[in-house]
């Protein structure tokens, strides 16, 4: 069979984000798979070194749209650890509640996208309709549907009053029986099970060896959860079960994520029930004393690691962000071995990739005068066409002529 190399991405309906994969196919079988990342490379780590700590909280929150609270909490915890700030317990509880709400909306989002990848659009429509319930709660508690801006160094910026708590509990109840319905659908819908099971298998040993994290690892029986192993915020005082599964495939990951949804509801109820009173933030010094800290957070996709090094000034010396998708991405190659082209989108979606986290790395402020000059549209087009003639051997010029004489 002649081998065919299929470029998937950076613009592809299955991938909501730009990353490009080159898949070598013979017939429908996947032979080789290579990923080319860096399309989302906006460079945040170096930008953090240009900004003060408070500005950094604003910037770090925009690393990723779905797990913005994850990154901001992780960063803020590291800074508080260096400055040895005594964060009030109520702030810790509020952070935990917002973190779990974010996990709920992220998992529901993933369930819908998984349904869409498999051609089951009704699941997308239903799960995203129920996700609006969580988004409304987050909107009226934190003021914004995404990028909540809840965290500040030394605590939280908004408090939960009785009205918020009442509406939150009501929302959690409605979501709980919706999730039970989805678990039942995942267990009974023949075509969905057919498309998810025995796809993208990752054995237990591979998961450990390749360093998979989060639901991808837990679906292969790896019992690791940063909330329990290395408790932060209020997780030390809450009891919850770590959901694992031994299907080792996409179906297992679906069940793990839905199990985690049920756990999140339990955590939110516990956290609200024994939420202590008291202040929600303390004043933090502008200059953070020299020191370094590593903080780990269980993001919906896996373990998120922030390393912050302070040098006594009001700007961090170094900020390193390792997103969970970077770890999980190494396992995709193993999962796709002798898979089928039809399974590629669902396998990639199964690790719930968030390439905005993965490519954040380095950027520097532009030196010199900020000159704003528009580039003439034709130069851009011709420059693009040149680049494509030498690099890819595709001559757009003929196409251009056809287009231009039609336009006349």
């Amino acid at each position, binding site marked *: 069979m002649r081998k065919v190399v299929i470029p998937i991405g950076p613009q592809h309906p299955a991938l909501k984000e730009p990353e490009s994969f080159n898949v070598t196919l013979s017939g429908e079988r996947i032979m080789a798979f*290579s*990923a*080319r*990342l*860096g399309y989302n*490379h906006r*460079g945040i*780590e*170096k930008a953090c070194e240009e900004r003060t700590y408070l500005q950094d909280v604003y910037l770090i929150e925009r690393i990723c749209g779905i797990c913005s609270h994850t990154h901001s909490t992780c960063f803020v*915890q590291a800074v508080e*650890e260096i400055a*040895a700030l*005594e*964060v009030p*317990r109520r702030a810790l509880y509020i952070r935990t509640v917002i973190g779990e709400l974010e996990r709920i909306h992220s998992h529901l989002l993933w369930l819908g996208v998984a349904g869409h990848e498999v051609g089951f659009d009704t699941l997308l429509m239903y799960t995203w309709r129920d996700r609006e319930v969580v988004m409304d709660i987050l909107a009226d508690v934190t003021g914004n549907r995404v990028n909540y801006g809840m965290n500040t160094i030394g605590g939280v910026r908004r408090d939960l009053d009785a009205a918020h708590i009442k509406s939150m509990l009501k929302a959690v109840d409605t979501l709980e029986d919706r999730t039970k319905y989805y678990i039942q659908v995942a267990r009974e819908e023949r075509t969905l099970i057919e498309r998810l099971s025995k796809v993208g298998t990752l054995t237990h040993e591979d998961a*450990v*060896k*390749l*360093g998979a994290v989060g639901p991808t690892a837990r679906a292969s029986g790896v019992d*690791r959860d*940063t909330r329990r*192993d*290395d*408790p*932060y915020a209020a997780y030390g005082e809450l009891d919850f079960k770590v959901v694992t599964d031994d299907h080792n495939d996409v179906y297992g990951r679906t069940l793990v994520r839905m199990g985690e949804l049920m756990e999140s509801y339990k955590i939110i109820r516990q956290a609200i029930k024994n939420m202590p009173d008291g202040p929600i933030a303390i004043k933090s010094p502008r200059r953070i004393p020299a*020191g*370094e*800290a*590593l903080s*780990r957070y269980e993001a919906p996709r896996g*373990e998120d*690691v922030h*390393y912050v*090094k302070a040098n006594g000034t009001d700007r961090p*010396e*170094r900020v*390193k962000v*390792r997103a969970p998708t*970077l*770890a999980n*991405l*190494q396992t995709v190659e193993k999962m796709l071995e002798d898979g089928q082209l039809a399974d590629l989108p669902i396998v990639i979606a199964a690790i719930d990739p968030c390439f905005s986290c*993965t*490519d954040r*790395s*380095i*950027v*520097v*402020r*532009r*030196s*010199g005068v900020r*000159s704003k*000059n528009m*580039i003439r549209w034709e130069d851009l087009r011709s420059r693009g066409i040149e680049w494509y003639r030498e690099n890819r051997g595709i001559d757009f010029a003929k196409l251009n002529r056809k287009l231009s004489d039609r336009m006349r």
Partner: protein
Amino acid sequence: MTEAIVGATAKEEAIRQKLVERFPFLADKVRATRPRRIFALVEAKDFENVLVFAIQELGFTILCTITGLDDGPTLGFVYHITRQDGITLNIQYDVPKENPVINTVTKYFPPAEIYERELIDLLGARVEGLGEGVRYPLPDDWPAGEYPLRKDWKKKISDTEAENA
């Protein structure tokens, strides 16, 4: 973290003891800042056996990530490794900036490859033993010899403006 103020607990002390007993020169270089966090500063030449010791005897089998630092004359590399019960050991060693050569740890941690590629791209480190691979995270047409993470590296104006300046 309320316990942060209390300082390290017994377990961290035990690990610290084992490390110092095995590598006497580490005596004042290993400190446990808070529960489940141990920072160690080692010489570049001893890094390999400290790492092997940590993996085999102390059970740090999971690599979180590798951080590259630019401390002026030298480039620092911090290896964050952790284990099942959450204790994280961060081993740092420095390499002179002139020839920033480190050897790969993909033998012990296969996923380290992508972190090392990131160091190559952004800090200009040269990693021995790392095969050819896809470039991450800088674009292909990125001018060679430019390492954005270095403190002295300032951004020139972007190439589209350069064309028209």
